[in-house]
């Protein structure tokens, strides 16, 4: 690790991969959403890292991006979990493997 940026980027990549793994392998729909949240957070970390170590941090571009990302992620989480709840009410399960009504 020759520079701190690499470290943060690696951590972000690792977090992203873990979140992806969770989203791809867990059966519960909520855990898929958890994985997605982790991926978003990893992306936020990337943004902040690049803001900090990139040129012109006084422009606040990275910070702003991250803040908006947080806001949007919150909204998305709300809607997604609401969907999961409504699906649960309908299908009595949150198992993604059983939700294949869109089968081709």
């Amino acid at each position, binding site marked *: *690790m*020759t*520079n*701190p*940026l*690499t*470290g*943060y*980027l690696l*951590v972000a*990549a*690792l977090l*992203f*991969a*873990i979140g*992806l*793994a969770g989203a*791809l*392998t867990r*059966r*519960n729909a*909520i*855990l898929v*959403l*958890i*994985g997605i*949240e*982790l991926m978003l*957070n990893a992306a*936020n970390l990337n943004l*902040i*890292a690049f*803001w*900090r170590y*990139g040129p012109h*941090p*006084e422009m*606040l571009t990275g*910070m*702003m991006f991250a*803040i908006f990302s*947080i*806001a*949007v992620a*919150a*909204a*998305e*989480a*709300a*809607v997604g*979990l*609401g*969907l999961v*709840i*409504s699906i*649960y*009410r*309908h299908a009595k399960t949150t*198992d993604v*493997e059983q939700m294949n009504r869109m089968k081709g």
Partner: protein
Amino acid sequence: MGHPLYFGYEHPWREFDRFLRESAGKGRLAVGIVFYLISAVAVGGALAAVLLKNLVHCALALTVAFLGLALLFLQLDAQFAGFAQILVYVGAVAILVVFAILLTRGSDLPKEGVFSKSWVVGLAIAAAVFAVLGWVVLQAGPWLPNETAVPAVTVNQIGQALMGRYVLPLEIVAVLLTAALLGAVIVAMHEKEGTKQ
């Protein structure tokens, strides 16, 4: 100038900050112990969130991961982002996740396993993604135009930016949040009405 203002709390923080900076500038370990610790926390929480069987434990682990990330933000001198992370993610999203788990009886252990039958494929794909990203990061040349200079970000500046340069995204995000709010309510409510009939 002198020391930047961190939310008005200068004194206890100043020391910590100085320690961090000093440790950051020493020797080969460019990032320092603190970074590794916080990273470990974040990554561990994330792993736990993904691997645990009990969903509530997963949600709590997720909270830990969020906290870790918030600390990483703080270390990156993005105090506002860090606190926003805590406020929003830990304070709202994690609670929301817990609520969802509770509402969908996620605490009950499922009959079949928690992992899908083809979890190896998913793991492999995630590993591939990590490999690609890691490789990109590692083989990129050193490029740190702003290593040591600490950006002095005040809330005032952030406010100015929000109202100035980023006013449009701000408004749009406001609309988005409203829509999300309404949408979530409708989705939950609509279903209730439908089942009643």
